[in-house]
Structure formats: C-alpha cells, structure tokens
C-alpha cells in the first residue's frame, strides 16, 4: 500500500518536472509548424489506483493542474482540462471494462491489461484532455481549425510519448 502512494508521489513530481522543464520548451514542429505540444502529465491521472474515490480523483486532478499551470504561467487552463479527465476517468473505465473485470491489486497498466486496452484508455482521455486544453488555450472559435489541428498533432505525439514511458519505465502500479 505504501509502495503505491510513494510510487504515485514520485511519479507526480517526475511528470510535473519533465513537463515544466523539458516538454514546455520542446518545439517538435519547429517555428513553422508550431502545432505539436508534448503532454506527459495526464498519464499521472490515468495511472492512479483503480479504487481511488471520485472526490479524491477530482481533487488530485485539480492539484496536478495547478502545479502544471504554475510551470506554464497559465492559471486555470491545464487545471480545467485535468478536471475533465478526472471526472470522466471512472466512466471511461466502466466502458472499457474487460470481460473478466478489473483486478483491484493490479495497476491500470499495459502489463495488466494489454497494449490495446491501454491505447484505448489513454487515447480517449488524452484526446479529451488536449481538446479541452486547446479550446481554453486558444479560446476563440475563429481558430477552430487550429484547435482541431493542434489537438490531433499533439495527440499523436503525446500518446507515443506515453507508450514509450510505459514501455521503458514498466510501472507495475
């Protein structure tokens, strides 16, 4: 049990640090195609234990968003997206539940439920997260095309980054 909490706290600081220091500066598309933003920190919410209460999940999402917003100096933008992911996570988990059900002792990882399941789980929530984020970041329907373009481009690269993390770090909880 202690192991789970320590793991998550460490992961929180790692993700926020990587996001704030490295990924914020990364300009993958160069100055001409500034559509790709890399997001790793939503993965923290996805990897929280299955049995976490809904209220705790919302509060954790709020805290995570605030930390990232502190790094980005954009009060509220990342937080709003994190809250949406936190409120939708139980719903998505219920929809994607495997036939034999979830195993409470296992983490929500590739190792536990397979790559395909994890791709669906992370894909849905990451896409929603990015969409909310870019809507609030760009904040005008005038650039609707840009919102969608940035969401899709960032989605593909961020999802790849998350899978890389899962493969390399092999978290079990």
């Amino acid at each position: 049990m202690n192991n789970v909490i320590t793991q998550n706290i460490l992961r929180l600081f790692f993700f926020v640090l990587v996001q704030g220091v490295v990924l914020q500066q990364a300009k993958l598309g160069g100055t001409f195609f500034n559509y790709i933003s890399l997001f790793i920190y939503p993965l923290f919410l996805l990897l929280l234990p299955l049995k976490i209460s809904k209220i705790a999940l919302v509060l954790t999402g709020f805290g995570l968003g605030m930390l990232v917003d502190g790094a980005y100096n954009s009060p509220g933008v990342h937080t709003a997206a994190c809250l949406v992911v936190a409120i939708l996570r139980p719903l998505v988990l219920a929809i994607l539940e495997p036939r034999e059900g979830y195993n409470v002792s296992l983490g929500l990882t590739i190792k536990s439920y397979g790559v395909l399941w994890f791709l669906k789980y992370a894909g849905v929530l990451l896409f929603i997260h990015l969409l909310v984020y870019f809507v609030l970041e760009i904040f005008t329907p005038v650039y609707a095309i840009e919102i969608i373009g940035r969401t899709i481009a960032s989605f593909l690269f961020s999802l790849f980054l998350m899978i890389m993390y899962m493969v390399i770090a092999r978290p079990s909880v």
Partner: protein
Amino acid sequence: MRNLVLLFLRFGHFILFILLEIFCLYLIVNYNRKQRDIWANSANIFWGYSSEKWNDWTNYLSLQDKMDELALENAKLKEKLINYELSPIVEKDTLQTLNQQYELLSAKVASNTTDRPNNYLTINKGIKDGVRKDMGVISENGIVGIIREVRNDYAAVNSLLHRRTFISAMIKRTGAFGELKWVGTNPQIVNLGSIEKHNIVAVGDTIVTSGYSTHFPPGLMIGTIASTELPSGNNFHNIKVRLSNDFGTLRYVEIVKNRKQTQQLELEKEIKEK
C-alpha cells in the same frame, strides 16, 4: 438533511467538479492576458448584439401601431392638400377649414381580390366611422374604388377592377374626359372610353380623376396611357391605361368623404327627371 447528505455522497464529486471548473474559468479569464482580452471582447460583442436584436424585436412589435399612426397622418395631410388645391385663391389663408369639402379617413384592407371578373375589397371602417355608400376610396398611389356596402365595422369596396365600376377620368394634359372601365382580364390595365377622335392622345399621358363625379376630388392619379388606337370608322379612341396602383399589394387605403355629395346628387337627379 439525510437526503442532502446522501445526495452529496452520491454526486459530491460532480458538484466539486463543477465548482472547480467554474473557478478555473474564472482564473482563465482573469489571469491570462490573451484569454482575458478575448473574453472582454466577446462579452462586448455579445451584449451589443443581444441588445440590438432586442431593440429590433420590440420595434417590430410596435410596427403595426406606427403604421396605423402614419396612415392616419397621411390621410390628414392629403386631405389638407386636396382642399387647398380646390379652394379659390381668396379663401386660401383664412376660411380653409370651414370650407373643407373633402375629408379623408384611413382604413386597413381586410381582404382583397384581383383575380376575379368582379373584384372587391373589404376595409376595416364602417358605419360607426361615418362611412357611407358611394364614397370614393383611394390609396397613396391612386384611386382604388367605390364603397358599395357598409356594415357597422366594415365596408365592402367595388374595386376599380370590377366591371360595374365606372369612373370619370380625364387626360391631364388636354383635359379631355371619358369613362374608365375594366374589361376583366389584366389587373393592371383598364380601358378609357368616350374620348372623341378629335382629341390628341399620346402614349404616356397621365390619366387623373376628372372631378365630375361625386366620388373623387379632381386631379387624383389613376395611371398612364399604355397604348392607343383609333379604329377606322370609329368616333372614339381605344385607349388602354396602365394603373399606377398595384391592387395586389394594397394594405392601407383612404376613404374620401365628400360633404357636398348629397347636394350634387340631388341636383343632378332633379335635372334628369325633368
């Protein structure tokens, strides 16, 4: 109380989510420069647009009243103009109102036809407004017809497009006068008969009321000559007049009350009987 606690246990996370999202939106539009500018701008546009639409709508609702008002005002003005033109020069400044022969009353068209052989209009003024049989009806573009039947609140008008409506008309330029008659086909064309062949008639000449009948004051616009021919062996021109009034779009009309109508009619009747 217990229900409230249960409700919160059940939906607490969702309520919390809503509250935190509102807080986030508050942060976004207050502490992010770009979003704040966009927000302020959009709010301006939204409120400006809404109040404009609201004004349009309320204006639209009062449009009917305004139109009635304007029609009334129009009738009054036209009444003055007609009487002014009629009164002899000496009377013009002082005794005008006492001598006023014609009075105009504005009315709304309740129903109207143009596609029958004999067309009628119904208007929303009747006996209680002082409307009587045989009064003339005009609109801003020209004459409309003659009152045929009157009830308490409504009156039926024999439109100019009625084969039994005869109106005395004259060619404005020469003063030659004849009788207007509709043949029952084209609602824009009427025939002008009884213009003798020694009169010079040209396409485009203006046709106005002659003032010899008691229905209309003289000089009211009727239309212009569309075509004319003089069949050989005929004493009269065959003139077609294009009406200035579009009978299909009539909404407001004015009833002409001629105060001296009875006098004139009685006199004419007396002469005929002798």
